[in-house]
C-alpha cells in the first residue's frame, strides 16, 4: 500500500555483507584472547545411566583443568527464559549427575591447546550404572518404564514426574467438555480419567467429544507421524569466556539473546548482572537452536571461572548434532464439517518425544494448539498435548516451533475433507480460514490479538493462476512411470509474542539511536540477526524515519552492558518487535531533532517537516507547506555541537501489543517416479504476506530457504535413533544425515515468489515478520501434491522412496 518510501523496500548492500564474504566477520569461535585456554567436553557414550564416578586424576596430572558435576553450582535451571517463571520447567544442572541421552555433556577439560585438552579428556574415567533407555515416546510413556526423572521443578514447585510425562496441555473452545447430559462445563486444564458430573453422570472426558460433532455431516479421523530433524545451522555452538579482574566475566557466545544468557548465568553463578557482559557477535544461523542458552555456554563459563583464565569452547558438528533437534510429533486429528463445507469441530491430539531435557515443551504444546486454532475457524475445538521425556537429544524450537508439524496434520486433512465433500480445496479453505478481524493465537492460548492485515485471499487467487491450479490432474489419474501432481497448502506464523495483555511469554525490546555530529546515525540494538537481514531492517527503518541515507546509518557493536533488554530474536519477531523498538526510539529522536532545528530556524517544531531531498540525497528539515527555511540533518547536528546543545539521541524500551500473523501460501508441482519412489519438486510458487517488504531480496531468500528445508523435511531429513544403542543413526555426520542441496531444488526459473500487498497498521512502516512462516506449509503442500500425482496419501514424514514404491505397488495391485 504505502509505496512512497525512500529506503524501505529498496535492495541495498547488506551491512555485514563485505565482512561475511571476505571472512572478516567475527563469530564466537573467531574470538582469540591473550592467555586463552581451549576446552573440550566429555560426552556420554550411553543413553541413560547414573554416573557412579568420574576420575579426572590422570587428566589433571597432565596439567589440565577439569570440570565435573561437583564443581558446578547446584542450581536447577531451564536454558530458555522466554516464558514467565511460573510456566517454566527446570530440570537441569550445568553438568548432570545422571546421563539422559547419548552425547550429553558430563565433564569438561581445559588446557593450553585443544589437542592437549582432548588428550587429557581421553584419560578421564567414568563409571556408569546403566538404565533402560527409550527412543520412542510411546515406550517411555508406558507405566513401569524406567523414570528418566524422578522429579522436576515448575516455577518454584517441585513435582513428581509420572510415566515420563514432562507436561500436558489441554485446551478446549466451544461445547467440548460439557456434560453430555446436562451440558455443564468442567475444567479441562488437568486431564481426568473419570468425570463425575453434578447431574449424576460419570464419563471419560478424554475419549468423549460430547456434542461437539453432532452437527457434522462428514467426519474424518486421521493419524500423522513427523520425524525428528536436526537444525543444521552453519555455526556450531561456541563460547569464549574471560573472567574479569574485578570479578564477573565477559562472554562471547552463539546465541539468539545476549540478555537471556546474561540473566541465566547471573542466576546460576550468583553474580550480579553488572559484572557479566555478554558481547553481541555475529550468529552463523540458528533456526531456533540458540533461543535457549546453549548447553556449552555455562560449561565454558564454569571452566573459565575455575581456571581463572579465558577459555574457549567450540562444539564439533557431531557434538552439535547430539545437542538439539526439532520436536517430532505423532498426531490424531478428527475433523467434522457440514456438507456445504463449514467446519463444525476439530479434535487434535499430539504426543511429542522431547528428549532428555524439557527446554520448552509446555509453551510448544500451547503454540501447537494456537497454530491449529488459528488456521481455520473451529467453533468447537479440542487440543490434547502430551510431552514425554525420551533418551534422545533435547528438542527445541526449530523454524516454526510446532507449526510445520501441526500444519501438516491440518492441511493434509483439509485436502482430504475437500475431496470427501467434492469441493475445490481452495474453496474449502476460503470458507473457513481465520482472517481479517478474527482472533489469532500468536503464542498459545494466552497471547492473542485481532488480525488487522491479511493477504490470504489475494495469495490463493494469485498463486492458483501462477501454477495453473484448475488445470491440475485428477488425483492418481496419470499413467506412465513418472506421475505429475500439483498441491497446495497455506500457513502462517506469528510476528512476535506480544498481545494486548502480556501472557505467558515475555516480549519487549530496546534500542538507542543517536545522531552523530555530522548527521550520520548510530543504532544500538540488542537484537540478533540470524542472517535474514534483521539488522539491515533496523538500519532501513531508522534511515527512513530520520531521512538519513542508508550509508550513513550504522549499527554499533553492542553487548548487554550498553543495551536495554531484548527477549530474543525468535518467534519471527526481529522486524516487528526488535526493529519496532528501534522505530519507536527513532521517533523520539526525530522529535528531538525537530525541536533543536526549530530553535535554529526560529520555528515551532510542529511547523517543521523532515524530508528526503532527492537532489542532495540528504535529509532536510523544512518549514511545512512553504519551503522557505531549511537545514540538513548534518547541519543541525553540527551546529548543536558547536553551541554545546548536546547530542540528539534517545534510548527506550518498547513492547508490541499485537502478534500479527504473517501468512504464506505454497503451491508446488511434483514428479513422482513410480519405480525409484523419488519425489522431485519441479515448480514452486510461494507467496508471502509480511506487510510492507523492508528487505525484498532477503525476504525472497527466506522463502526460497524455507522451500529448501521444507523439501528436506518432507522427503529426506530424519535424525533417527538406533533403538538398540541409543545412538543417532547418522552418528553426527553429514555424509549420513541427508539434506536438500541446490541440486534437489526446482530449476531457478521455476521457483517463483511474490508478496501480498498488505500493510500491518501496528508494525514499523506496515511491516510484520516472515522467517518461520517460510517453512510452515511446504511439507504439507508437497504431500498434497504427491497425493494429486499418485492418488496415495502419505501421512508420515519424511516420505521415503521405499515407502513410495511400496505404496504405489500396493495401489497398482489393488491392495489399497
Amino acid at each position, binding site marked *: 500500500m504505502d509505496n512512497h518510501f525512500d529506503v524501505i523496500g529498496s535492495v541495498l548492500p547488506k551491512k555485514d555483507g563485505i565482512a561475511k564474504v571476505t571472512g572478516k566477520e567475527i563469530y564466537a569461535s573467531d574470538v582469540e584472547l591473550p592467555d586463552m585456554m581451549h576446552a573440550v567436553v566429555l560426552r556420554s557414550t550411553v543413553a541413560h545411566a547414573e554416573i557412579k564416578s568420574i576420575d579426572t586424576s590422570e587428566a589433571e596430572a597432565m596439567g589440565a583443568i577439569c570440570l565435573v558435576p561437583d564443581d558446578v553450582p547446584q542450581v536447577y535451571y531451564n536454558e530458555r527464559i522466554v516464558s514467565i517463571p511460573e510456566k517454566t520447567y527446570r530440570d537441569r544442572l550445568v553438568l548432570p549427575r545422571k546421563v539422559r541421552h*547419548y552425547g550429553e555433556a558430563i565433564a569438561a577439560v581445559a588446557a593450553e591447546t585443544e589437542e592437549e585438552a582432548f588428550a587429557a579428556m581421553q584419560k578421564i574415567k567414568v563409571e556408569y550404572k546403566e538404565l533402560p533407555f527409550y527412543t520412542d515416546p510411546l515406550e517411555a510413556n508406558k507405566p513401569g518404564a524406567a523414570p528418566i526423572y524422578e522429579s522436576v521443578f515448575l516455577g518454584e514447585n517441585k513435582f513428581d514426574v509420572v510415566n515420563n510425562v514432562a507436561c500436558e496441555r489441554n485446551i478446549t473452545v466451544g461445547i467440548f467438555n460439557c456434560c453430555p447430559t446436562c451440558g455443564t462445563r468442567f475444567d479441562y486444564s488437568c486431564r481426568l480419567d473419570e468425570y463425575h458430573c453434578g447431574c449424576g453422570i460419570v464419563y471419560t472426558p478424554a475419549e468423549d467429544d460430547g456434542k461437539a460433532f453432532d452437527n457434522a455431516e462428514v467426519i474424518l479421523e486421521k493419524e500423522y507421524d513427523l520425524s525428528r530433524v536436526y537444525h543444521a545451522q552453519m555455526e556450531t555452538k561456541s563460547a569464549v569466556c574471560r573472567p574479569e579482574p574485578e570479578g564477573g566475566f565477559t562472554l562471547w557466545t552463539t546465541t539468539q539473546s545476549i540478555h537471556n544468557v546474561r540473566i541465566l548465568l547471573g542466576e546460576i553463578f550468583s553474580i550480579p548482572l553488572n559484572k557479566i557482559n555478554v558481547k553481541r557477535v555475529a550468529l552463523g544461523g540458528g533456526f531456533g537452536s540458540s533461543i535457549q542458552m546453549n548447553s556449552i555456554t555455562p560449561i565454558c563459563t564454569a571452566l573459565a571461572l575455575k581456571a581463572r583464565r579465558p577459555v574457549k569452547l567450540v562444539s564439533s558438528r557431531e557434538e552439535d548434532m547430539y545437542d538439539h533437534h526439532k520436536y517430532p510429533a505423532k498426531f490424531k486429528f478428527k475433523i467434522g464439517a457440514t456438507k456445504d463445507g463449514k467446519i463444525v469441530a476439530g479434535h487434535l491430539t499430539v504426543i511429542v518425544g522431547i528428549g532428555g531435557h524439557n527446554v520448552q515443551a509446555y509453551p510448544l504444546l500451547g503454540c501447537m494448539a494456537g497454530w491449529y486454532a488459528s488456521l481455520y475457524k473451529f467453533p468447537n475445538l479440542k487440543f490434547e498435548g502430551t510431552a514425554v521425556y525420551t533418551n534422545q537429544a533435547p528438542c527445541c524450537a526449530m523454524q516454526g516451533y510446532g507449526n510445520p508439524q501441526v500444519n501438516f496434520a491440518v492441511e493434509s486433512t483439509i485436502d482430504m475433507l475437500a475431496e470427501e465433500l467434492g469441493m475445490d480445496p481452495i474453496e474449502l479453505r476460503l470458507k473457513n480460514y481465520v482472517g481479517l478481524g478474527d482472533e489469532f493465537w500468536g503464542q498459545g492460548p494466552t497471547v492473542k490479538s485481532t488480525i488487522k492485515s491479511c493477504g490470504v485471499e489475494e495469495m490463493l487467487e494469485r498463486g492458483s493462476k501462477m501454477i495453473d491450479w484448475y488445470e491440475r490432474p485428477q488425483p492418481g489419474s496419470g499413467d506412465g512411470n513418472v506421475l505429475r501432481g500439483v498441491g497446495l497448502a497455506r500457513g502462517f506464523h506469528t510476528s512476535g509474542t506480544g498481545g494486548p495483555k502480556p501472557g505467558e511469554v515475555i516480549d519487549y525490546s530496546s534500542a538507542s539511536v543517536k545522531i552523530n555530529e555530522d548527521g550520520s546515525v548510530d543504532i544500538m540494538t540488542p537484537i540478533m540477526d540470524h542472517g535474514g537481514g534483521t539488522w539491515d531492517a533496523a538500519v532501513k527503518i531508522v534511515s527512513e524515519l530520520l531521512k538519513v541515507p542508508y550509508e550513513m546509518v550504522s549499527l554499533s557493536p553492542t553487548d548487554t552492558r550498553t543495551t536495554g533488554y531484548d527477549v530474543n530474536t525468535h518467534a519471527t519477531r526481529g522486524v516487528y518487535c526488535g526493529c519496532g523498538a528501534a522505530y519507536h526510539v527513532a521517533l523520539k529522536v526525530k522529535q528531538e531533532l525537530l525541536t533543536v532545528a526549530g530553535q535554529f530556524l526560529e520555528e515551532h517544531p510542529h511547523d517543521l517537516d523532515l524530508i528526503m531531498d532527492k537532489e542532495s540525497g540528504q535529509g532536510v528539515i523544512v518549514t511545512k507547506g512553504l519551503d522557505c527555511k531549511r537545514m540538513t540533518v548534518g547541519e543541525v547536528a553540527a551546529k548543536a555541537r558547536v553551541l554545546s546543545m548536546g547530542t540528539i539521541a534517545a534510548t527506550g524500551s518498547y513492547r508490541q501489543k499485537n502478534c500479527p500473523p504473517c501468512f504464506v501460501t505454497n503451491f508446488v508441482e511434483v514428479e513422482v517416479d513410480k519405480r525409484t*519412489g523419488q519425489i522431485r519438486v519441479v515448480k514452486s510458487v510461494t507467496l508471502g504476506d509480511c506487510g510492507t517488504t523492508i528487505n525484498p531480496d532477503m525476504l525472497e531468500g527466506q522463502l526460497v530457504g524455507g522451500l529448501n528445508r521444507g523439501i528436506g523435511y518432507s522427503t529426506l531429513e530424519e535424525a533417527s535413533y538406533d533403538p538398540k544403542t541409543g545412538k543417532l543413526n547418522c552418528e553426527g555426520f553429514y555424509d549420513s544425515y541427508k539434506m536438500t*542441496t541446490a*541440486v534437489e531444488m526446482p530449476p531457478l526459473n521455476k521457483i517463483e515468489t511474490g508478496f501480498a500487498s498488505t500493510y500491518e497498521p501496528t508494525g514499523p512502516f506496515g511491516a510484520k515478520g516472515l522467517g518461520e512462516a517460510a517453512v510452515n506449509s511446504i511439507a504439507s503442500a508437497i504431500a498434497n501434491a504427491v497425493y494429486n500425482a499418485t492418488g496415495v496419501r502419505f501421512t508420515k514424514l519424511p516420505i521415503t522412496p521405499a515407502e513410495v514404491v511400496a505404496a504405489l505397488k500396493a495401489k497398482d495391485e489393488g491392495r489399497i
Partner: protein
Amino acid sequence: MHTNTRILAHNFVYHEPKTLDEALTLLDKHKPGIKILAGGTDVLPKMKRNHFECERLMYIKNIKELSFIDNSNGLKIGAATLLSDLEKSPEIKQNYHALHEAIKAIGAIAIRNMATIGGNICNAAPPADTVPALLIFDAQLKLVKLGGERTVPLNQFITGAEQTIIEHGELLHSIEMPELTGGLLSTFVKLGRVSVDTARINMAVAADIDGSSNTIKTARVALGAVGTKAYRCPDSEALLAGKKVDESVILAFADSLTSVCDYAIPGRYSLPYKREAVRKLAEDAFKQLLS
C-alpha cells in the same frame, strides 16, 4: 562420545614416503600395524567414527610412480591417481565412457579433488562407483610388495563388503584394462537419495551395437550396491546379445535385473525397493547409451 571433527581420537605414527621403494619397505617393516592413506575420504570419516585403527598411517599421494594415466595399450591407471584427473582425461571419456561417468558421479568436486581410484577400490564398499565400471572393462589389479608383485582380476580382488584379498605389506599399484575392440558404447547409471550420495544401486552397461541392423552384438552389465560386492550379470548380458534395441528388449532387460536382485538379496529389507528401482536404471542406461 570420543570423537571430535577436528581431532582424531587415535595416536599413530605418520609416514610420507616419496618413492614406491620407500613405501614398500615401510609397509614390509611395520606390517601388520601400518595402513595406507590416499585421499582419506573414506579413511577419515571412519577414523572419526572409530571404525579405523592403526599404529601407523602411510600417505601415498606423494609417490609419483602411483599417479599416472597410460593409454598406449589399453588403459593403465596408477592407484593414487586423483579422481578429478581421471575425470579430465579425454581418452577415458571417449573410450571408457562408463568409467568417466562413474567418476563424475562420485561425491562433489571437493571429494574428487582429494580421492583416488585406488582408494575407491580398496575401500571395497558395496556401492563404490568405479567398481561396476571397471568390471565391465575386465579390469586387472596389479598388487606390489617388497620383492614381489601379482596381478588379479578385480572380481576376485573384492570378496565382500569392505573385504579384499590384499595382504599385509601389499599395495595396489595400478589398474589395467585391455584395449577395447569394436565400437563398444558404455555408460554408468546411479541412484542415490540425493545427488551427492553413495549409491542405493549403481550399474555399468556396455554394448556393441551394430548400427545398420540396430542389433546388440554383445553386452556387458555390472551391478553394484545390490549385495555385498558388485558383480557382472551374465544372464542379463546373454539376454541382450543378438537382440534388436527396442522397448521390449529394455523391458526384458529390466525384468532380468529384477531377477538378479531377487537372487542376490533374498529377504533383505531393501529388496522390495531395489527390485523396482533397478528398472529405472535399466531404462536410463539405454537412454544414455543411445544418446
